[in-house]
């Protein structure tokens, strides 16, 4: 029996891309207890949305909740407001929205996988992943006009029209990305040393995933079939070849591989969308003030994102509630650490792809 030592991990740490703090109580090398603190980037966005901003300005505000999934947040909000106002969007708008949502998922998953590679000691693989990720960023930049803050989905449509030139550009880049991702995926799947650090580490069983209500790739890596894209009908994903991806191992490696499976599926979907973008207007007319309440479930890259909106026929909404996937995954993370080695803690945290600016808002 060794001495008990408390090791702080975060809120600022070289292995962490986000400010979250863990206090690990360790015995020799094994973690016996853990405390989590997540409130480092609280900005009061929900309160601001209910007091300072009008509902027409909110797509731009909620897009700034998170840098990576800004498309998801703006999409969820516009979808909810359109339900409240009774606006029917046409097929072209739906397809363009689906295209950016899937491109967003690709680059978010590549970032997560790259970070896992970095913390298990593969600096080079991390750089390769990020190099290939640039292609997706270029496509998004070309479609929306900005690299990080897209502001593409607005109430009643999308901000910009889509033309033939962008389509050709996107198709060329996507085919290049597909070949590159296959190369990367082969390495992640078959490399022996990478497997030593990731296989069998931080295993979540199917029962555990269901009990702690996990969301997104974490649940799907444990064999739990949950995906808001299939369960909640907000965009016609089935039409463009969406398939649910699951793995059964439930460890760090399986989470990475589920992400790669989803990237491949998303690339397929994007190519299908580019093949058949319907004709039509990219904006429809918006009239009226929101009244009543609505809830929306959308699939963010990290899992299920929940929005609750309540309007009262004025310009300012009564209530805006955001529940993000990382928040749903924190309880199982806490449980998972007990009994694991401290040296594996970084890989486990990063395989969850935590987004703290979403969580704290």
């Amino acid at each position, binding site marked *: 029996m060794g001495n008990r030592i408390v090791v702080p991990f975060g809120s600022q740490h070289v292995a962490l891309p986000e400010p979250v703090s863990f206090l690990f109580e360790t015995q020799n090398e094994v973690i016996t207890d853990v405390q989590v603190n997540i409130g480092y980037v609280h900005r009061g966005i929900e309160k601001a949305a209910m007091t300072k901003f009008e509902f027409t300005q909110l797509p731009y505000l909620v897009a700034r909740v998170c840098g990576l999934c800004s498309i998801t947040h703006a999409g969820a909000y516009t979808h909810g407001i359109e339900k409240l106002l009774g606006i029917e969007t046409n097929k072209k708008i739906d397809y363009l929205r689906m295209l950016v949502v899937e491109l967003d998922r690709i680059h978010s998953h590549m970032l997560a996988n790259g970070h896992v590679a970095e913390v298990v000691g593969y600096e080079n693989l991390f750089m390769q992943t990020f190099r290939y990720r*640039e292609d997706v960023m270029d496509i998004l930049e070309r479609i929306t*006009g*900005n690299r990080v803050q897209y502001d593409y989905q607005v109430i009643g449509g999308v*901000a910009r029209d889509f033309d033939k030139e962008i389509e050709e550009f996107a198709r060329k880049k996507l085919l290049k990305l597909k070949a590159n991702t296959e190369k990367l995926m082969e390495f992640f799947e078959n490399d022996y040393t990478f497997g030593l650090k990731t296989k069998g580490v931080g295993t979540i069983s199917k029962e555990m995933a269901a009990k702690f209500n996990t969301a997104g790739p974490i649940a799907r890596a444990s064999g739990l079939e949950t995906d808001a894209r299939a369960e909640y009908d907000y965009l016609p994903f089935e039409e463009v070849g969406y398939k649910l991806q699951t793995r059964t191992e439930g460890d760090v490696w399986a989470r990475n591989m589920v992400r790669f499976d989803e990237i491949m599926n998303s690339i397929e979907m994007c190519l299908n969308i580019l093949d058949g973008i319907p004709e039509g207007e990219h904006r429809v007319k918006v009239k009226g003030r929101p009244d009543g309440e609505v809830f929306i479930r959308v699939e963010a890259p990290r899992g299920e994102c929940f929005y609750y909106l309540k309007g009262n026929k004025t310009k300012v909404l009564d209530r805006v509630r955001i529940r993000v996937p990382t928040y749903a995954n924190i309880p199982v993370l806490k449980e998972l650490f007990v009994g694991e080695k401290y040296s594996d803690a970084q890989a486990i945290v990063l395989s969850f792809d935590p987004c703290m600016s979403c969580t704290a808002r």
Partner: protein
Amino acid sequence: MIQMFIESLKNLVSKPETIKYPFAPSPEPKGYRGTILYNEELCIFCDKCENICPPGAIKFEVVDIESGKKQYNYNPYLCIYCGACVDVCPKADEGCLIQAETRTPVLGESIVKDKRLGYFINEIDNPKLVEKKWRELEIRAAKSREDLVAYKKAKRAAKKAAKAKVSE
């Protein structure tokens, strides 16, 4: 193993993926969402752009209460370049409010002078004073609005009184 050697030899001679940004230029991509440019001659002063701007980077200040003349002020350092104002502008097709593909220079070093950027930025000479002056302008603009409303109210009341007098 052989493949690894081939790959590393290739990497030795291949060009880097990155660009040396401060020394080499980093051009704006096609369709970049950049600075908002304004044309006063076409503006109908509907204030729609001011009302939708999420950070409040567009402010109209009433300069002459009697005629109700307004001035367009734009702070490119507060702007988030979302393009909401251009979307909502009723005269955007004619070029009243457009989003150019150029970037704004860094704050604190130099200041851009362009008539199309509105009155605020053209009146400032010291780039360090931008924030302070903008805060003053925000207060001034809000006050000028209140003054205009009060003036109009008083005018209406006077008109009513005059009408009542005539009918007597």
